[in-house]
C-alpha cells in the first residue's frame, strides 16, 4: 500500500482572507496554533471533522483546501518534471 500525502492551500487561503493569522484560524476551528502550523507544514493530517471546519472558515469546498496525492502520483509527477 502506497503512503498517502495530503497537501493543502491553507497558507494561500489565509493570505486571501485578509491575511488571517494562524492564531485566528486556530480560534475559529477550535484547535491550537501549533496544530494549524503542523497542518500547513504537512506534519499532521487533520481529522475529517477538522478539515471540514477549516474549509468552512474559508467558505470553500474541501477539495480547494486539501488535496490527496498518493506516493505513486507524486513519483509520476517527479518523473515528468525530470
Amino acid at each position, binding site marked *: 500500500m502506497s503512503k498517502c500525502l495530503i497537501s493543502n492551500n491553507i497558507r494561500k487561503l489565509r493570505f486571501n482572507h485578509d491575511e488571517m493569522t494562524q492564531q485566528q484560524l486556530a480560534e475559529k476551528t477550535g*484547535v*491550537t496554533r*501549533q496544530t494549524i502550523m*503542523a497542518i500547513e*507544514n*504537512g*506534519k*499532521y493530517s487533520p*481529522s475529517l471533522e477538522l478539515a471540514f471546519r477549516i474549509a468552512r472558515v474559508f467558505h470553500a469546498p474541501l477539495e480547494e483546501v486539501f488535496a490527496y496525492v498518493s506516493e505513486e502520483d507524486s513519483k509520476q509527477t517527479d518523473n515528468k518534471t525530470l
Partner: protein
Amino acid sequence: MEQKEKQILVSIISSIVILASYSLYVYHKFMAGNPGIINDFRFWGRAFLILIPVAIMAQIIIHIIFAIIHKIVTDEDLSTKNDERDKLIELKSIRISHWLFTLGFFLSMGSQAFGKPPWVMFITLICSGFIASIASEGAKIFFYRKGL
C-alpha cells in the same frame, strides 16, 4: 521551543529529580547500615505505596511553579487546551510507555523465574516504570517536532 515542549521537558526533569531524591532519601533513611531490609517485602511495599502519591504531589507542585515562572517571564498563560493532535500524540506515547513497562514486567518476572533475589524484581519494576515514563515524554517531544 513550543509551550507544550517546555511542559514536557519540565515533566522529564521533574521525574528524574523526584525519583533520584526519593531513592536517596529511602537509601539513607532505611537501607544504609541495614542491608537485610532489601529482602523485606514490607519495606518494598511501603516504598512503592509512598512513592506514588509523593511523585504525583511533587509533579503538581513543580508544574504550578513552572506556570508561575512562565507567566512572569513571557507574560503568557500556559495553555490547557488539548486538541485532536495533542490527544493523538498522547495516545501514541502512552502506547510506547505501555510496551516498555510490559517488557520491564516480564523481565522482573524472569528474574524470579531464574532464581534471582526479590529485590531484583522490585528494582526492575521501578526502573521499567521510570524508563517507560521518560520514553513516553521523549516520544511526545519527537512527535511534536517531527509530526505524526
